[in-house]
């Protein structure tokens, strides 16, 4: 087990190097000029451009820029954004917001998703199953920005039930309810469907028949014996999803004006603030890798047959 964890942690190093290099190259090789729009709809003064290029090493060839950047990164220096704020400060300021939103969304999708999946799984072919299948299909097929803007318009503006935007960084949990539901919507549907399919499969398994034959109650058969096995693919999905949620949800954070990591990326990309983008993505990749390691370790708990020795 310990060996396995160490091996996985070591494997993260090449993955991190690879992703940062790719992101770095992609961001800085983008056509266009980072000083665009810095001075309004007019070219920046030569003085400004010279100072800007000098500050961000833009005159160096790309590989040298990357090595300079990585050298600083290894010392814990993520560089400063184009607005002269250290990237790490920006990210630290924004992660609590994203974490709050992500955890709320996670709770929503786990509770509603698994509940809906179990209900439709044990009542396969019945009315409730049809309702779940049709509604999840609907949610999956509608793009998230449509769900977001529509719920914002109807529930926020017209009915006045929820705030339209999340006003401050110390916003209350209630402010996050609507965005969290929007963010969770697609995953709720996937989790419901995954749970249902696996439950239906496992309910046909021999051990379930044995359990039933032993005279166990239906609740115990489904709840303890079948559901635990059926959860493995669902946990995998949740792990992947949590990684994505923590990396920031660009669309939802933009629509609800949430100042989390997603909103930060949304502003940094058009501004071509490469240092900010690479720094944010590096941390997001790191979190993603750690969460997935955690999920892999969870397998052993859920199913003793899976071993990491």
């Amino acid at each position: 087990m310990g060996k396995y964890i160490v091996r996985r942690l070591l494997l993260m190093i090449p993955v991190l190097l690879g992703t940062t290099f790719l992101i770095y190259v992609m961001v800085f090789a983008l056509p266009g000029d980072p000083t665009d729009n810095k001075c309004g709809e007019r070219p920046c003064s030569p003085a400004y451009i010279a100072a800007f290029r000098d500050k961000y090493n833009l005159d160096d060839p790309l590989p040298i820029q990357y090595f300079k950047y990585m050298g600083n990164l290894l010392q814990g220096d993520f560089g400063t954004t184009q607005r002269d704020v250290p990237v790490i400060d920006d990210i630290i300021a924004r992660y609590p917001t994203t974490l709050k939103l992500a955890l709320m969304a996670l709770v929503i999708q786990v509770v509603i998703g698994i509940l809906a999946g179990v209900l439709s799984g044990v009542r396969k072919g019945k009315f409730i199953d049809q309702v779940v299948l049709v509604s999840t299909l609907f949610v999956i097929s509608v793009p998230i920005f449509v769900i977001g803007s529509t719920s914002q318009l109807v529930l926020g503006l017209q009915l006045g039930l929820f705030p339209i935007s999340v006003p401050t960084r110390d916003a209350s949990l209630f402010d996050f309810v609507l965005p969290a539901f929007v963010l969770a919507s697609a995953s709720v549907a996937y989790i419901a469907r995954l749970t249902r399919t696996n439950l239906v499969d496992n309910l046909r398994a021999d051990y379930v028949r044995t359990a039933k034959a032993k005279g166990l109650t239906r609740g115990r058969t489904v709840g303890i014996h079948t559901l635990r096995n059926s959860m493995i693919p669902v946990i995998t999905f949740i792990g992947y999803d949590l990684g994505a949620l923590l990396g920031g949800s660009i669309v939802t954070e933009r629509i609800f004006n949430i100042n989390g990591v997603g909103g930060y990326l949304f502003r940094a990309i058009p501004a071509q603030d490469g240092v900010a983008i690479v720094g944010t993505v590096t941390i997001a990749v790191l979190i993603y890798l750690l969460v997935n390691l955690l999920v892999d370790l969870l397998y052993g708990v859920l199913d003793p047959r899976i071993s990491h020795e």
Partner: protein
Amino acid sequence: MRGTTRTVAVAGISAAALLLAGCGGGSEDNADTPTKTGGDISVEGCSPQNPLIPSNTSETCGGNVLDLITAKLVSYATKDAKPEMDIAESITTSDNQNFEVKLKKGYKFHDGTEVKSKNFVDAWNYAAYFPNGQGASYFFTPFAGYADLQSVDPDEDGPQKAPEPKAKTMSGLKVVDDYTFTIATSEKVSNLPVRLGYTAFSPLPDSFFADPEAYGKKPIGAGPYEFVSLTPDVDIKLKKFADYAGKDAAKPDNITFKIYADDETAYKDLIAGTIDVMEQVPTSALIGEQWKTDLQDRAATKAVAGITHVGFTKSDPRLANVKVRQAISMAVNREEITDKIFNKGRVAATGWVPPGIDGYAAGACGEACTFDAAKAKTTLAEGGGFTGTLEFAYNNDGGHKEWVEATCNQIKTNTGINCVPRPFVDFSTMLKELESRKFNGMFRLGWQMDYPSIENFLAPLYGTDADSNYQDYSSPAFDKLLGDAAADGDPASSNSKYQEAEKLLGTDLPTMPMWYTARQTGWSDKVNTVEVDAFGVPDYGNVTLK
């Protein structure tokens, strides 16, 4: 809108009249209507692109905030955009080249120090000095000695650094005493005083020079509002400055600029009353005039002193004949585009200078800007026709695709010229292509004025070798008129010389004017009517609560 040029107000008066007003602030027509002052308002804001240093902020997001924080020598009235003396007691000249500025006593910076002559001179020298990399340094070009503070990177974008400039201070600026300083320009500039109301000309307190970086995080000015805090991407908070000496009394006690990533969200918050003022309603709300239904009497349209035009490259021999250019211009139905593509959000142009500017005269473009498909065809034939494709360059990052395509289609339909839109990834990429003079064909450009004068729409764009003269227009007659007008101290005759110059553009047609900008501003039901200045920036300091 995000990323547009910082602009000042429109003039109702010219330079010389301003000089005469040098004896005082002039009489005010502030009718004492009982309005509730005080209270807090929140308005839509956006993330400043640069640290908040006046000479390094030439875009609206930071500029609108700095305008409330800083006071300048001159300010522009919201109502009629008239320049008025602010910190300056008087600005006098006898030859339009040497100016003497006298300051009022008692103006204080937010840190308690008094505003003195050296605060202006030091700030301006800092702004113009090349190694400081200030975005608005070009505003100081007319000052004597400006060139000595500049430096050129020997290998352009290469790794080598530009050498130290020859001087650190401009020879044209001299401190006489605490409340007097002099400005000398390298050429005659009769409208210099009008220019001095721009943010870049703000004085800076002594503490700035000790630590410019700290200042950028907490700017200190002498204006009606004091900077409180900036939370990146969340909000910028300002509070009323108790010791403010100027006459533009601040009404709200606190102003919060709430920063939005998406103007659709801001618009919904405006309708719900979460924010009180929105500078420009989103494009989606303009469709079918939805914004008028949503906001009813809580909205206003205001013409803004900016213009969009299409330039013809000099290097394209097929465009050399003026008849060809006229034909292209006549083939464009400007009204149709402003109505259908911009949902009446713009005003079709009839010249190169927008209405509301001192010196504006309608119709300088003449029949070349009047849509006439039949005449376009015959004029093109007279000009010898056009072979091959006509490329129409635009930047893809500014919402220009639709109108450029529509314009190209009109040209194609009405003249038979094979017009093809040519997108560039962003504005500076397009400008680089234009600067290298490699591009042949037409290109879109916009201009928003820096200071309230007809001159600002002509000299920087059409003067021989001027900075923004991408069409390489060069006319000795035009240049002479500009020179004469700049030296002319009498506003009326100076303006008529500028107007004559504008008429020359109508004859030579180096660019075709398309439309003037307009702005649609909305406010919540918690506040009274919000005044918007001629540039479309709401007068935040004068908003009153109901």
